[in-house]
């Protein structure tokens, strides 16, 4: 990626590209949409049978598998939509309050 947007919040109106056109690919990964999340999915290893259904349904491709086993949720981009919890046949996801989860982490 050639376009450095690391200080975009400091840019003057004169610096932005005309017409809000983005002439760069794959830069959406620079926008960590996990910040939108109000509910956080918590995965339960005990209940999970590695069926891959959450992997298929996650609209943000935040769920990863390694060696055919559930390998984690990318919270940088997970918007907390709850589709994984809704679709999981094993009920292996619990949606908890993001604010509470963060306050516990502090």
């Amino acid at each position, binding site marked *: 990626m050639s376009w450095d947007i690391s200080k975009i919040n400091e840019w003057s109106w004169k610096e*932005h590209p005309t017409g*809000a056109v983005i002439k760069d690919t794959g830069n959406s990964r620079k926008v960590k949409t996990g910040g939108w999340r109000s509910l956080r999915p918590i995965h339960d290893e005990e209940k999970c049978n590695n069926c891959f259904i959450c992997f298929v349904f996650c609209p943000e491709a935040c769920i990863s598998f390694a060696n055919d086993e559930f390998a984690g949720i990318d919270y940088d981009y997970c918007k907390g939509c709850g589709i994984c919890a809704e679709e999981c046949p094993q009920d292996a996801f619990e949606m908890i309050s993001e604010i509470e989860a963060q306050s516990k982490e502090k």
Partner: protein
Amino acid sequence: MAVKNSKTVAIVGNEAVAEAMRQINPDVVAAYPITPQTDIVQAFSAIAADGLVDTELVNVESEHSAMSACIGAASSGARVMTATCSQGLGLMWELLYIASGLRLPIVMPNVNRTMSAPINIHCDHSDSMGARDSGWIQLFSENAQEAYDNIIQAVRISEHPDVYLPVMVLMDGFIISHAVDRMDMIEDEKVKNFAGERSAPFTMLDPNNPACVGAFDTLHGYFFEFKRQQEEAMANALPVIKNVANEFEKISGRSYGLFETLGMEDAEFAVIAQGSGAGTIRHQIECLRSNGIRAGMIKLRSFRPFPAEELIEALSGVKTVAVFDRSTTFAGGMGGPVFNELRSSFYEQENKPLMVNYVYGLGGRDLSVELVKKAMEEILAMNSSGKAEQKINYLGLRE
């Protein structure tokens, strides 16, 4: 400047515009018919069917779709045109802002017709005036010749890298669109060279240089910055309109600017008008001047951008200014849009002229010679007394 023209024709305004479109040969035209604009697209469809242009003509199901198709095509780097008026422009509404916000050069003749209700298909400027804050450049035409000339110049103004804004070319419904006028057409080759090829800053159809158009701007995003850029682009359009006009004079012999003046070098009072009404007013101003009365006139061509500084300078010597508006703002007795903007422009000036407004011609009410004469007598009286009995006047209204 004397320039040999290929032919002088008798033509209605709508066909004149279609001929300009043929000569420009745009890549895409997407349009939907609405009276009194229909003949533009009808004539252009015949031109396209005859193979005289390379244009991809898209017959859409509404004006909303017409502008949507234009936005898509312009984003791909194509030179794009459409045409509409009145309710059709109303249906395009949300897309007007998208076209200007994405900074897409689109040229659109708008055949000025009023907005319903009651249903009325005739001329006033309330349709395009409603879109005055949508970020489009708006150029008025007095007759078929100016509509034709404005379309050709609009392509260059719109595609200028300092501007990149869509342009509306305004022409009065029926009075210009359907009346046969004498017009000089420029040779095809000269128009083609003048218009040139569209140079796009990006194209969505280049796989080696991909671009994302119309991305989402979040609450903490950059929307404000982009709007400030649009304001700058509109200000940039002022010199660009003048420069394009200078170049156009070389191929046409006809001179244009942000506005046209008559008798302003010694005028004591001035009338400002736009569109076809300027013709009737000019006749009266000339009559007054031949009787030794120092009357002047400004015919506004560019309403967006609004040439405030230039207008203040041109009007610096007059005691009274009468603004003729073919629409009103419904602000509750504040008068028409041109009156409001001109009055606002004078706020910081120490020497302000007496300013009065004449709202006229709504829904096609004729601006007759007699009405203009009556207004001139009133303006003359105001000029000598230095007082305006009535600031907002409705000319031709049955009281």
